[in-house]
């Protein structure tokens, strides 16, 4: 209702509807429209046209079905927008709230660019987007039901946020409470669906016109793909999808996308960092999410060789080749006089230790570095910190902090280091490098000896599991797409990681249920590049969203999943045991091995049958180490033929 002191207003839905009907004759006819419903007279002019007969009827009657006869659906225009951004796939679970766009994508858009991939759960659809990006460097999009679908997706969105991965999410929603269908669609609508994920997305919006959608979609893509990368969300109003698209008097246009240059560290800070590194006796380079590309790997190698400094790769990406003799374990950080940390997810945890000894609920904090050690940081994440979720970790004071993208900053840093190294330092640096190379070789020997222990054990040791798998894929262009089980990092320690796609890192947020979906998504990306995808798949992880197995089979995504089946939520097995010990109580295991509530046994899950039921080639359970090689060989042949294959391997815990 308007009052005498307020201007008559139309909501957006009425306005669009008026414009749409009037559009059939080529122009809005204010006199005709006004003849239907005359707004109350006021002292100010109407800011919009009053509703016509259709709108008036809609106000009091049932919401009409979307009409295909009143012009081009808004969702067709949305498809035009989407197609400008080279988005290859769209894994999604279907939902009525985005039915307009769904129909346009597959019929108007011919189901290409993007191709709709049928998913049985929103969480793994987002996980697939996550893994795909890490294998290809290109984002893909998903569609979710506004409320319940986005709630399903939320954990995977958080993983993508913590792992700095762009995922384009659009959630269907029906904003108009007076006209949307009652019952289920109203249960599944919200004022602001993006609020569900706002704390862990980089940006979100709710477009209210076709032009607004075009701007926001291109904007979301640009924001998501500018470091620091991150997931983004659009709320997709049902009416906007279904009503005929209108231009409101201005020609519709699709903004052209130009990638932003990644932010770089400040020039002065780069010089200061170079000065500290060049003058250091024992500099250490620590990296976590530096290399987005093979060029990033090359730049990091160049910096390390220039400084003859050890590199600690924390492994959220394959940053530094483990075959390079300057690669070293985290223990070298304790000897450093200068540490440069690049794109670290936890700088405090890099230079401090925390022992979870459980005494009265507090752990012990210990510094890992010597007093006076200078700390340098390059991190794009410093440019984007939110408040609620604590992924920013504990605060660490840094001597030279550069908010910026590390890969983009490396060329300037390398040049600055070249200038800062004085000739009198070169002999010392060469000696330092020689010592690191020697230690690296010894480290490899030690790792091999550790791997040899329990080599013939049953259940199968995690070292044997990993090396048997490697033996069958080593001649292929392989990519380890996920290691969701904790297999003592054997693959990262013993497989030769020489390219950026050899290892794609972990989940980011440690939300369990990432492994299988991200593996399938990465395998999809690798499939198109001719790479062979292998995952070390843990049992607990697989049971969060096993439907992704069906999606992989349905869409012929080749992936070798070698299971690390230790029959428990093993981290929790140890946590409960730890607490029981501190409380001097013998832990209650029921009839299982681990504390009650932590084991996945009795009955043991037959993962091979689970996979078979969803169209995978599968074999198991395998607990005899001698049976592993022939089974993996068989599975590799299946995967090379274009199908997914799973081996259910019963293993040692870790």
């Amino acid at each position, binding site marked *: 209702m308007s009052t005498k002191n307020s201007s008559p207003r139309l909501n957006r839905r009425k306005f669009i509807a008026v414009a749409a009907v009037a559009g059939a004759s080529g122009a809005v006819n204010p006199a005709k429209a006004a003849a239907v419903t005359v707004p109350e007279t006021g002292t100010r002019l109407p800011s919009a046209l009053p509703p016509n007969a259709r709108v008036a009827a809609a106000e009091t009657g049932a919401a009409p079905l979307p009409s295909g006869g009143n012009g081009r659906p808004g969702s067709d225009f949305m498809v035009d927008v989407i197609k400008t951004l080279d988005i290859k796939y769209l894994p999604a679970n279907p939902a009525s709230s985005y039915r307009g766009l769904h129909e346009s994508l597959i019929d108007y858009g011919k189901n290409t660019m993007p191709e709709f991939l049928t998913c049985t759960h929103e969480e793994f659809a987002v996980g697939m987007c996550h893994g795909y990006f890490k294998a290809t460097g290109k984002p893909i999009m998903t569609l979710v039901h506004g409320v319940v679908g986005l709630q399903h997706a939320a954990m995977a969105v958080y993983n993508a946020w913590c792992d700095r991965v762009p995922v384009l999410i659009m959630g269907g929603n029906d904003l108009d409470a007076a006209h949307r269908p009652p019952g289920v669609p109203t249960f599944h609508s919200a004022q602001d669906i993006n609020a569900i994920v706002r704390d862990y997305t980089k940006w979100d919006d709710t477009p209210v016109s076709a032009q607004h959608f075009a701007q926001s979609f291109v904007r979301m893509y640009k924001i998501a793909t500018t470091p620091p990368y991150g997931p983004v969300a659009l709320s997709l109003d049902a009416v906007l999808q279904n009503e005929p698209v209108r231009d409101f008097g201005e020609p519709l246009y699709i903004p052209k996308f130009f990638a932003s240059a990644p932010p770089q560290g400040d020039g002065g800070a780069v010089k200061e960092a170079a000065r500290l590194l060049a003058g250091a006796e024992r500099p250490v380079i620590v990296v976590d999410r530096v290399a987005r590309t093979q060029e990033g790997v090359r730049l990091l190698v160049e910096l390390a060789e220039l400084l003859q400094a050890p590199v600690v790769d924390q492994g959220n990406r394959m940053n530094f080749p483990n075959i390079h003799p300057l690669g070293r374990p985290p223990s070298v950080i304790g000897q450093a006089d200068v540490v440069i940390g690049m794109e670290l997810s936890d700088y405090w945890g890099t230079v401090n230790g925390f022992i979870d000894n459980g005494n009265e609920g507090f752990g012990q904090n210990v510094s890992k570095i010597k007093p006076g050690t200078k700390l340098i940081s390059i991190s794009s994440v410093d440019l984007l910190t939110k408040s609620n979720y604590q992924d920013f970790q504990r605060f660490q004071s840094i001597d030279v902090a550069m908010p910026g993208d590390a890969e983009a900053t490396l060329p300037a840093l390398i040049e600055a280091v070249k200038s800062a190294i004085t000739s009198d330092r070169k002999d010392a640096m060469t000696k330092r490098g020689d010592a690191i190379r020697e230690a690296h070789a010894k480290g490899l020997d030690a790792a091999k000896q*550790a791997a040899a222990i329990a080599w013939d054990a049953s259940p199968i040791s995690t070292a044997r599991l990993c090396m048997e798998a490697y033996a069958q894929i080593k001649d292929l262009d392989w990519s380890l797409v996920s290691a969701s089980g904790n297999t003592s990092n054997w693959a990262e320690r013993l497989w030769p990681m020489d390219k950026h796609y050899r290892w794609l890192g972990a989940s980011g947020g440690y939300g369990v249920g990432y492994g299988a979906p991200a593996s399938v998504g990465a395998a999809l990306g690798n499939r198109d590049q001719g790479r062979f995808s292998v995952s070390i798949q843990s049992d607990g992880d697989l049971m969060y969203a096993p439907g992704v197995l069906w999606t992989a089979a349905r869409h012929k995504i080749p992936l070798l999943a070698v299971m690390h089946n230790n029959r428990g939520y093993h981290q929790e097995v*140890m946590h409960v045991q730890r607490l029981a010990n501190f409380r001097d*109580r013998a832990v209650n295991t029921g009839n299982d091995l681990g504390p009650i509530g932590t084991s996945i046994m009795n009955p043991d899950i037959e993962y091979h049958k689970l996979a078979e039921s969803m169209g995978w080639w599968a074999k198991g359970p395998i607990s005899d180490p001698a049976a592993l090689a022939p089974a993996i060989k068989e599975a590799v042949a299946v995967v090379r033929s274009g199908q997914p294959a799973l081996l259910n391997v019963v293993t040692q*815990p870790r």
Partner: protein
Amino acid sequence: MGCVRVFVPVFVVLAALTGAGAAFAADAAKGKAAFIQHGCWQCHDYAGEGSIATSNGKVLARTQLALDAFKTFVRTTNGAMPPYRAAVLSDADLDDIYAYLQSLPQPKAVSDIPLLNDARSK
């Protein structure tokens, strides 16, 4: 089980290591059961090979610690490993666990495992 068959030699080894009859009643088979019952396997794996993630790479199989040192560590550790005090793990169980760990087979030589020769090689 192999661990039962090696009980006698383990006893001899233990006696030599500890210099006394501390392990006089140690039983590797019972030790294996205790190792599992009390959750040692959770961080150290069933065969005592350990993990870089959960036991900092420490290998328990055929541990070089003397029995007394081993027991002292288990009772008093306040680091990454929680202590096992006598209320939940008896001295006798600890003796048996030690015997089990000593009964585990020697690891193969790396040179006898061709797959390890592929480690980090392209």
